[in-house]
């Protein structure tokens, strides 16, 4: 750790003496590292860069919080120099939002009444949304994101051109929840009485219940926008610790009520939908108040955390002690630790930190049979099948994950974005395959296809200077005319390197050298960063689309390397074909990217959206197309899911995915743990 701090310091000195170019990159590097501290930064920005002697003192100190403060000061020093850099006109655009700038309000954990800060019928925070202003330019509201308050001049053209949409044709959502549409709760009074005695917070307010009745599948959001409310939980309970959960589960068993655990609510597999056939009282168990880091063990680099904590809070709090988990799923602003465990989540930087199953050391779960956990924190065991693997991916069918011991890592010293342009998608995939073969993948490496590259470009904010736009033009000229890349075929890989500076630079060179062998041209940090931004704003963009008759969704799979290209092409083409056959008037957006690399294959992520004007039942058409796309994935050797999970949306394919015996095995576990189906969300099986 000390070594790490020294290198931060060294880096700081180097950059302060180095030329403008290097400093600029350092700023951008540090910008990401610190974006989770922004609140504190805000306070410190006015202070001058502290002296070296102070470094010494903080190094000597064992207090991690003072270390962190010290680090912030260093970082803020770099950020302060930004205006000077920009005045030279060389700096490209503003850094884009890929994680929220924390505002003071976010320092408080997720409130019980989430609808007060979040949309009840769309993605994310109520204050952040896209809209087209009076002159038809897209804007993003709020202050949370890098994109917030900016104008995106090219989004309109892209939007209209891609979907055949028209700003005149609006399909606005119902503005407020019509409370009378919510069925009165079916309350289990004895259960409530006993629960009250224990002192667990609860509510049967319709808004609370509606908020927890859905995830973010298209059909769920579409129905909410139309004001259609289906079966919703009858009440919500907020346990505040493991003991509370034990009590709740015990009472639920005693009074035969149905429990549906609710973490971040970001499910895209219909996992949170209340089963229509459920006649018992449904209780939504909201874990958001179980959000403390219980301890950090710096000797073993582990942290014991309550499972209700959401990604950004976990990361921020660990950062304050100089650590991180490195687990950054695209939904990390809202998704919870327990949710990650229950769905086998995957993070963007899994190449360094691993996926959730690699990160957990110990899991505690409350089931109707009692608590399941291991007896020690050993890093690996040979004690029969790993019981963690019954819990990981159980999707709330077996119990509630209450506490997790997780690996943590010191915050990396240095972070750098990058991007590579390839003449076509084939070359890009070949390059990623080679990177995986040599096992030198950076923290994150993603390959976007041409459509997505253009999509990313449509999200470029207004450029501040003529020089920048000239530079952009020059870059484009170089790539398309001088290097002969066809703008309708080229694609871009975005990269994120992390680690100590020397190694990052060395690593970067290695990756760029491989890329060059496949015709790849380094295309700058900015393009890279914009690529990552896309994943964070895409869900907000879907809401914008839905205001103008455009609906869409994403889905993912994992597939062996030799099938990546064929699968991508076939699935995209299948989507186009199915839309055409079902009367969709305008060709859909059907695009993909390779988001993760593994030794034996890759994870592929698809976006699919279309203009539904003229269709009588757009959601049904949408579902049919998505169904066909999944069939196509399976027929091309792809998996049912890489990280979204099965839920109820993909249940029908479980048998063929894991074999009849496999499914029977899972069923028998469910039968033993939860014979009365208390955890009755009916996912997976």
């Amino acid at each position, binding site marked *: 750790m000390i070594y790490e701090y020294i290198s931060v310091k060294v880096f700081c000195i180097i950059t302060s003496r180095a030329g403008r170019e290097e400093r600029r990159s350092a700023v951008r590097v540090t910008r990401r590292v610190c974006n989770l501290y922004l609140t504190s930064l805000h306070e410190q920005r006015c202070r001058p860069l502290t002296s070296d002697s102070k470094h010494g003192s903080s190094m000597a100190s064992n207090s991690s919080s003072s270390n962190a403060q010290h680090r912030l000061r260093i970082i803020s020093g770099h950020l302060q120099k930004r205006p000077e850099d920009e005045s030279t006109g060389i700096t490209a655009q503003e850094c884009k939002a890929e994680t929220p700038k924390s505002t003071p309000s976010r320092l408080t954990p997720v409130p019980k009444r989430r609808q007060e800060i979040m949309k009840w019928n769309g993605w994310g925070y109520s204050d952040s949304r896209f809209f087209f202003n009076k002159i038809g330019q897209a804007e993003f509201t709020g202050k949370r994101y890098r994109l917030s308050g900016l104008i995106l001049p090219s989004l309109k053209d892209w939007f209209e051109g891609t979907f055949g949409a028209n700003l005149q044709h609006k399909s606005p959502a119902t503005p407020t929840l019509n409370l009378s549409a919510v069925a009165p709760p079916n309350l289990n009074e004895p259960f409530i009485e006993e629960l009250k005695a224990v002192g667990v917070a609860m509510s049967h307010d319709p808004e609370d219940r509606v908020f927890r009745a859905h995830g973010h599948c298209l059909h769920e959001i579409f129905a909410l926008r139309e004001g259609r409310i289906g079966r919703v939980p009858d009440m919500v309970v907020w346990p505040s610790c493991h003991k509370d959960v034990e009590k709740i589960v015990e009472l639920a068993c005693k009074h035969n009520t149905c429990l549906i655990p609710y973490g971040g609510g970001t499910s895209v597999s219909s996992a949170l939908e209340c089963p229509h056939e459920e006649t018992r009282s449904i209780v939504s168990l909201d874990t958001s108040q179980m959000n403390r880091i219980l301890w950090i063990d710096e000797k073993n680099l582990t942290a014991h955390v309550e499972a209700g904590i959401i990604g950004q809070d976990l990361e921020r709090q660990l950062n304050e002690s100089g650590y991180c988990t490195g687990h950054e799923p695209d939904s990390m602003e809202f998704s919870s630790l327990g949710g990650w465990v229950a769905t086998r989540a995957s993070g963007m930087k899994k190449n360094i930190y691993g996926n959730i199953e690699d990160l957990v050391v110990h899991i505690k779960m409350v089931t109707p049979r009692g608590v399941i956990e291991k007896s020690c924190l050993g890093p690996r065991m040979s004690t029969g099948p790993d019981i963690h693997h019954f819990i990981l991916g159980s999707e709330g069918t077996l119990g509630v994950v209450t506490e997790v011991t997780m690996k943590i890592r010191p915050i990396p010293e240095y972070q750098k974005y990058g991007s590579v342009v390839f003449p076509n998608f084939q070359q890009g995939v070949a390059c990623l395959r080679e990177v995986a073969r040599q096992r030198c993948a950076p923290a994150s490496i993603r390959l976007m296809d041409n459509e997505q590259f253009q999509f990313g470009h449509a999200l470029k904010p207004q450029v501040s200077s003529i020089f920048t736009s000239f530079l952009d033009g020059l870059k484009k000229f170089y790539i398309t005319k001088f290097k002969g890349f066809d703008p309708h075929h080229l694609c871009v890989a975005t990269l994120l390197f992390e680690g100590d500076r020397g190694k990052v630079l060395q690593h970067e060179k290695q990756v760029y050298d491989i890329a060059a062998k496949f015709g790849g041209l380094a295309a700058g940090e900015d393009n890279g960063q914009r690529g990552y931004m896309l994943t964070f704003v895409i869900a907000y963009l879907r809401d914008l689309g839905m205001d103008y008759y455009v609906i869409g969704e994403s889905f993912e799979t994992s597939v062996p390397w*030799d099938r990546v290209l*064929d699968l991508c*092409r*076939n699935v995209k083409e299948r989507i186009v074909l199915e839309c055409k056959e079902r009367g969709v008037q305008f060709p859909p957006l059907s695009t993909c990217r390779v988001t993760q690399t593994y030794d034996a294959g890759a994870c592929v992520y698809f976006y699919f959206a279309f203009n539904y004007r003229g269709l009588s039942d757009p959601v049904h058409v949408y579902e049919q197309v998505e169904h066909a796309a999944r069939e196509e994935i399976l027929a*091309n*050797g792809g998996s049912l899911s890489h990280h979204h999970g099965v839920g109820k949306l993909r249940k029908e394919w479980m048998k*063929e995915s894991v074999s009849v015996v496999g499914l029977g095995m899972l069923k028998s576990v469910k039968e033993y743990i939860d014979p009365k189906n208390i955890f009755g969300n009916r996912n997976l099986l």
Partner: protein
Amino acid sequence: MASRALYSSSHRMLKKRDDFKDTLEERRSSSDLRYALRCYTPTLYKGLVPCKASMLKTIVLQSDHLQYVIKQVSSEAGDSIESVTEEASLILDEMAHRLQLSTIRFFAFTLSKAFKRLFRSVCVNEEGIQRLQQAVHEHPVILLPSHRSYMDFLMMSYLLYMYDLPLPVIAAGMDFMSMKFIGEMLRMSGAFFIRRSFGGDKLYWAVFSEYVKTMLRNGYAPIEFFLEGTRSRTCKSLAPKTGLLNIVMEPFFKGELFDVNLVPVSISYERILEESLYARELLGVPKPKESTSGLLKARRVLSEDYGSMHVYFGHPVSVRSLAEGKINRSQYNLLSRHIPQKPSTDTQRFLTDAAFRLVRIQEENMVLKPWVLIATLLLQNPDGLDLCSLTEQTDWLRHLALSLGAFLDWPDHEACSEVINCSLALHRHLLSVSGGHVQLNVTETPKVETTPEEAVFHRAVVVLSCATYRNQILHVFLRPALLAVAMQSANSRRKDDIYNCFIFLRNMFSNEFILCPGDSAQDFEEACYLLVKRGVLQVLEHEIVMSVSGHSALAFLCAVLDPFLQGYQVVCRFLCEEANENLTEKEFIPAVRTFALKLILAGRLKCYEVLSSDLQKNALAALLKLKFVRKVKEDQVTLKVNKTAVNTLEDMLGGKIPTQKPVLARL
């Protein structure tokens, strides 16, 4: 989608067919040279990977699939990898086409000249061409023409050049290679050559399949091959082969291609160039080996009139929609795709089914000329007909055929007698017309010193030549005719009995005609539907009865199948009476022929078609399938006959004994 139509069985007759345009018309009025040298810019496949013919070889040799098989063969045979690779490279050299535009231009010129001399018109459905253009752009295309003549593939390339479509590469039998100069010319016009049999040769199969697949995956050119495998000597469609079909479908099954378009093409001739050659071949005169000098000698064909020719490009059939719900593509998930895999039973069944359906589409789109009707009638009346009665009956038959869905090219505004005269004139060498009496040219004995055998032979040539025309329309009558015969031999009005009998006949003739395996119920319904619609039958709940006016149609339909029934009977009789214990497979056909000849000479058999080796082969295949005859492999393959069973079968075919349930149950 086109292929959905493939499965809707009934109401075929209502399907609208495209109009034709004579492509020679323009050739007769403008310069062939300028035509051959014109600017040629074909529609291309949207996913085309540009690649030269010479590069194909490298791609194929370096493919994972071939590399895998080379390693396998080398370790099995103990040869070095280099030598196996060398062998593969030689196979590829022997096989590969060298498609060149200049050769095509040469052919465009010479064939224009030749076609103008041979044919009155070459008619093409231009809507089909438009559909093909679309199909070529969307997905790789497989052209599946019917195969009746050597002309077929020359004509295909010629037409594709004419309509600015990409020139196909054509799978051709190795026999052409022996024609030195012509072989090379064909190679340069896109033909690639495959050995007729390479059953166990793993390396050959790998090279061949990878070569085809590489061209397909890269969208190099449309691939053309003949589902029937070889030219049909009888003009009946042949039971399709599935080997190549599997190769071209596999890239779809394995997800390497989004889809493949199959385009069945039906090529029909008013008069077939090889007409009498085929007849002789069927009678046991071996087919002349393909040679350049032979071709030059055949020049005299150029001076004759072959009437008109029709090429009908069918609707493209998407393999994707064909396979939907029938092929589980995830069966290929667990094995790396470059490792060769034998098609599973399900896949094999699907391939067979698809192949049969495609051949049926070819049949349905085959244009039939009036002569086909006349030939049918003349064969049923060996003693000939008066011209006026012929005219009357042809007209009657024409209406029957049309109502059964025949694609008849009958001149609209001409009198029936005029049409008939015209047809008779074109085929005069098969006929004798004297004093208003029309007869097949069977009575005329050419020279004085002919032996009786030779006389029979000459008559047989004419009958079999004529049969090739009748055979073209068999597919129209087939299902109703099977029903008609079933009704006759079931000797019952009960639907069940008739159905059982229908099934029996259908099984019996499964090698003779194109009958999709597993479609019996559908075929039966189709036959009933057609005949009810025509007013021939009435189908009641449990019974099928003939209508008052149905007699002539039923009699005609029975007569259609008569030669085949007789033929199978003769084969049965031969096996019961003449075959000894040691009859080898090789001896079978000559022996049956001798036996039949004896019967004819003795006046006990009138049907000359029995002499056709095709019929004899099919009969044997049917008996083998029914397990009434077994093949035993000793030094040679010998045939062991279950004489009782064959005897019963003969009686059943002759309608002597009503079919009995126990026998049927065994079938």
